């Protein structure tokens, strides 16, 4: 008869620690899952006032209003899939929270609009380094047919070697030029005209700490 016997170093305390650790680990994993889920929701993102400006344009886009009722949330596009990468993205994303708390007053629509281009460039870089992974959660390139005659052919022949974000910029949020042709002075002027500011005021606002 074989007698199962725990090794000697498995003392009662160790056993207790293992059980507690396992249970704690499982609870922590559930917590992370729920945490990532919650912090990917529109409600969470929009709990910062500064995000409501992004929301305005999002609500006009087909990613919010699709005829089929499929609606992409903030996290669907901006948080990676899988608990590890999702947690990582949220960890990195805390810098936004820190900036929100200690940086410029992004709640101010003027400040928000003035800083928008850099945010857009960073977001595009994020999509590009991940090969537009979050787009592909829903969109399968080979299956794109479109409503026009040659949309399918373009996505199969001409999109080779490209990633979604290479072509599909300015899809959801306020249009911003690509970094290469972006002109800060022109953007400042646009914001000044939009908010009725004195010429040169935008540059002053940007220079404020």
């Amino acid at each position: 008869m074989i007698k199962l016997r725990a090794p000697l170093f498995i003392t009662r305390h160790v056993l207790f620690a293992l059980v507690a650790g396992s249970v704690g680990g499982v609870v922590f994993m559930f917590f992370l899952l729920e945490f990532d889920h919650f912090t990917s929701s529109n409600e969470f993102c929009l709990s910062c006032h500064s995000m409501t400006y992004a929301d305005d344009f999002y609500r006009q886009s087909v990613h919010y209003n699709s005829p089929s009722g499929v609606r992409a949330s903030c996290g669907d596009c901006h948080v990676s899939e899988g608990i590890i990468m999702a947690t990582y993205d949220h960890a990195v994303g805390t810098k936004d929270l820190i900036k929100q708390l200690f940086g410029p007053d992004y709640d101010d629509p003027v400040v928000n609009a003035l800083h928008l281009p850099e945010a857009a460039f960073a977001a595009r870089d994020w999509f590009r380094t991940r090969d537009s992974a979050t787009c592909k959660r829903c969109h399968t390139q080979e299956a794109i047919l479109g409503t026009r005659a040659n949309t399918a052919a373009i996505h199969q022949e001409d999109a080779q070697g490209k990633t979604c974000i290479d072509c599909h910029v300015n899809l959801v949020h306020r249009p911003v030029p690509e970094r290469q042709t972006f002109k800060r002075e022109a953007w400042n002027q646009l914001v000044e005209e939009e908010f009725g500011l004195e010429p040169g005021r935008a540059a002053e606002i940007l220079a404020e700490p």
Partner: protein
Amino acid sequence: MKYPILFLVLVVAALMTATPAPAAKVTLDASEWGHPEGDNCISCHRKASPGLTEQWRQSAHHAAGVNCMDCHQADPADVDAMTHEGQVIATIVSPQDCGRCHQTEFEEQAGSVHAEAHVMIDARVPALAHQLTGAAMQAAGCDQCHGSRVKVRGDGTLDSATWPNSGIGRINPDGSKGSCSSCHGRHAFSRAQAREPEACVRCHSGPDSPDKEVFEASKHGMLYKAQRAAMNLDADTWVAGQDYTAAPTCVTCHMGAAGKIPATHDVGLRNVWSLNTPVSMQQYLVVLEDGAKLELPADSKPPKRGTELTKADGTTGIVKVVAGPDRRRQIMSLVCLECHSKTFTASFMDQFDAVVELYNGKFGEPAAAIMEALYQHQLLTPLPFDEPLEFTYWELWHDEGARARHGAAMASPNHAWWEGMYLVGRNFYSRFLPQARAVAGEAAGELIDPVLEASAHHQWLAQPEAANPILGWMPPPEPELEPEPEPESEPEAESVAAPSDAEADSRIEAGGDD
């Protein structure tokens, strides 16, 4: 070779008889075009926008190896540059861009009445487009012909209040003026298309410059329509009298090569008169050192070479060359001579000039003088188009008067007369004068009558008894047998311009009170 000298003579003879190329040839080396990324554009755009791609594919540009990037490439620093599929491009291809290859045409059109079409009316546009109607009309109306001042928004997009636009005086983001595609349809840029009268029709039609209608109603238009197949429109060179003789088009007279006259992209070069002004003026064409051009009234002394002049946009330039009205008329007439005799040509020009001078002396100048007097005496407000008389005056010279003058310039009797000077006369006597008198009130005798009395043109009104059967009624012949005694003193109309109030009511003013 058996006959080397004969061969040489034949070659030289062949070269000498070869036609000189009237259109400027592209001198840029072919290595300067054929951008390596061009093929990638085509791969996608033949699916995404097959219409324009196919037009390009059938074009001379395609045949020469000129692709999308050659025209649309941009520098990242350009205000309208955008990143598209990894390339930096601009939507608008300006005359300056086309000028990279087509330098001669770019320089010729620069400063022309076409290129300056926006600047010339810039100050006047708000009166009609903003006040009378609304700003939307500037984008959809005025600017579609005169060109817009294209605004690039801070996000890199073109402001929809100013674009799409291919108006010929468009002020482009790169600062150049004009739009080649105004006449040269994208993306085929077919020379045959640009030589057709239809190339001009989008703007040169309608009440104020009915050149399409005038041309079609002229003998030139009649012949063009009947003999279009013989126009050789697609020829490499297109010299009137040499490559085609069937009929002239707009291009032939205003831009085309003819005999020894070279082609030009300065479309106003051969025009003596301003025909779209309240009073027509003969004009100098002044070419400035920087290539810009100006037109100045020819009743003053010509500006001297080297003097400084202010341009339409407010900047200044140094005078380089001045072409007087005679020189401009001479160039136009040389085109005529390819098909007409010298006396025919000179006499036609006499007929044309006489119409312009008649318009000026009988209607344009008096009407302008009366309006000026009414403004000066504050009988009219300075604000345009808030009084009916201002519309009447505007239509007198801008529509009806322009039509009469254009009709005479291009030999459409219908437009010179029924659509033109007849309406000018009807307006002047039955609307303009009665309204002006009403505005002037008691001051009419001081402000209006002297203007009319100053010229013999209006004396005919002083003979109300001069009958004519045109309206179907003639006074019965006076009985000859019993001559009645002379009435004591028939009250003569003192003058045409100052009829008694009662008389005026029953005559011109009664008909004009609309």
